[in-house]
């Protein structure tokens, strides 16, 4: 009797849990599903009163062709790769040595420095936007790739994430490397980075998603269309088309979201490992 009642409440709870999670997933996914659905329909069908998931009349080819030809969408996507790739490379170049120094070297002021890093996490990027803008203007860098990339080259979050991961790397591994003849930078690149690969990949996915989707900063520093990042490009497009032609617009939105989804799926296993920090040893 007893076990059955436990099983029964267990079942009820499970149903409830799945329903709640399902509802959450539905709310999260709905905009994307509608985006894809709209990107397949002709404009007449988009605002028809009865909503169907799949179009009655397929219009996918025209929508996607329009998205790529009426605006330089491929260029935006390339810009996206240039910007996010450069940013991530710079972030790694700075975050790994900083994280190593914070996690594994002993020096005066280390704890204070780490507190400052944590403090850096709390400052919203909007706060520093105006000083940075003025600085870039004075350097004559406005409206260049550098203007988009430079402010993001140091990721406080990256330093924090990598430091937490490096803490779990045994000290003796580093000592062995020192005896084997590696210098401190060689230890960072040859020992710490490969050991922390799951965290590096997790950070890579987060950095990619964040900078790919970044809208605010590129909007401020970039005017030229040929420098536009994907979200900026879609907005240019929406403005240019007066916001009525939703089919090609959603096709463009789908096209710029796809690289993120593909990157995440490819890195999923490491991503989960890295964020939950179970991979070392």
């Amino acid at each position, binding site marked *: 009797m007893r076990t059955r009642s436990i099983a029964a409440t267990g079942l009820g709870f499970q149903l409830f849990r799945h329903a709640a999670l399902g509802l959450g997933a539905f709310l999260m996914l709905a905009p994307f599903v509608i985006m894809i659905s709209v990107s397949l329909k002709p404009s007449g069908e988009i605002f028809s009163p009865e909503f169907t998931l799949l179009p009655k009349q397929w219009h996918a080819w025209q929508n996607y062709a329009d998205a790529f030809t009426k605006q330089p969408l491929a260029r935006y996507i390339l810009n996206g790769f240039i910007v996010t790739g450069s940013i991530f490379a710079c972030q790694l170049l700075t975050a790994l040595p900083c994280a190593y120094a914070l996690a594994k070297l002993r020096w005066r002021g280390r704890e204070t420095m780490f507190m400052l890093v944590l403090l850096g996490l709390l400052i919203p990027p909007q706060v520093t936007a105006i000083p940075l803008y003025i600085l870039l203007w004075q350097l004559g860098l406005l409206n260049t790739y550098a203007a988009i990339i430079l402010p993001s080259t140091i990721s406080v979050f990256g330093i924090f994430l990598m430091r937490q991961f490096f803490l779990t790397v*045994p000290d003796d591994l580093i000592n*062995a490397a020192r005896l084997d003849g590696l210098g401190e930078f060689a230890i960072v690149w040859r020992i710490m980075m*490969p050991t922390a690969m799951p965290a590096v990949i997790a950070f890579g996915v987060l950095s990619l998603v964040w900078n790919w989707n970044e809208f605010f900063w590129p909007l401020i520093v970039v005017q030229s269309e040929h420098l536009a990042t994907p979200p900026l490009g879609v907005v240019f497009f929406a403005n240019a088309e007066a916001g009525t032609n939703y089919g090609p617009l959603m096709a463009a939105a789908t096209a710029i979201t796809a690289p993120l989804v593909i990157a995440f799926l490819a890195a999923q296993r490491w991503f989960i490992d890295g964020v939950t920090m179970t991979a070392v040893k």
Partner: protein
Amino acid sequence: MAGISLRNIRKSFKDAQILHGVSLDIADGEFLTLVGPSGCGKTTLLRIIAGLETQDSGDVLIGERMVDDLPPKARDVAMVFQSYALYPYMTVAENIALPLEMRRLSALQRLPLAGRFMPGARAARAGIDRDVKAVAEGLGIGHLAARKPAQLSGGQRQRVALARAMVRRPKAFLMDEPLSNLDAKMRVQARTEISELHRSLGATFVYVTHDQAEAMTMSDRVAVMMGGHLLQVAPPQVIYDDPQDLAVATFIGTPEINTLPGRIGADGRVEVIGTPWPVTVEGQPGAEVTVAIRPEALMVTHGAASDAIALVGTIRHVEMLGAETLVHVVASPLTRPLVTRIEPSAAAALRTGDPVALSTDPRRVLVFGKDGKRIAVRQSSPPLVPAARGETVHV
């Protein structure tokens, strides 16, 4: 090859002083074992020799050369860590090759991909591969070259760690409990292998261990360390037979040495439980001392006491270990049982609860002062032949 000298090494972490002036000369090619209880500073001392930790004061010399200002890689010593510290994402061959790559290849030649095409890189790499192979074959891990450390057993990992240390032919090896992660059987085997390795390499070994059997069987000399002091440095047999400190005497030897409270009588003889023993020492009459006797130096006699040095007691427990038997005897008024180690055949007649007498050769009695330091025995009478009243067990 080179000897190692430590001169008055001191080290503190925050307020806690860990090493209190350690001085030690290790000869070229010597196998020196460092033993001591957990937390006494053995690892810290090894790390100071390797240059991974800086001492607060004192000097380290390797091969007559002061190395205090040299970084670890310039000291030319190799270390085997307790955890083995193998690089987890590299194969066995890559693990062993890394120290050679760092020494034989230039920074350009070490570059990933492009480095392979630098002038001279191919010849150097071929040389490295050859040496790695030779060392791996020598230790019987040649067939594991392509595996990752996670795919190895404990014993295999230990060998890879050894190979990585050996491959660059360092002047000295520092080993921090390299066998403590192995099971008992593997440990005995690895013990022999490391001894043979020491003989064939002829290098200086500093070997840290908890395990007395390792210390006794492998070393030329044993250094016993406690609370950051070196209490005694001597060959294993001397440490066992002739400990200079009560702490050394109790730390070395299983079962532990028997200790009895005593005092120095007016005539200089040591009195135990009010009875003077034929052991005359050079100490202040009236001073309290500790008398210590190894378990195998105690004889168990069935029946009553017979000799000058004799204690009566009852058997509390007989422990048969196969090759030997331990007999625990409570001699009133002492409460802690004294342990004797005898031949199993001699113990056949002994039963728990039997009244027995314990006797010993006065020359095998060790006397320690209140500060734990050994007190020299001026004269001890030869052993008295036990009377034929009971069966006597001689070991």
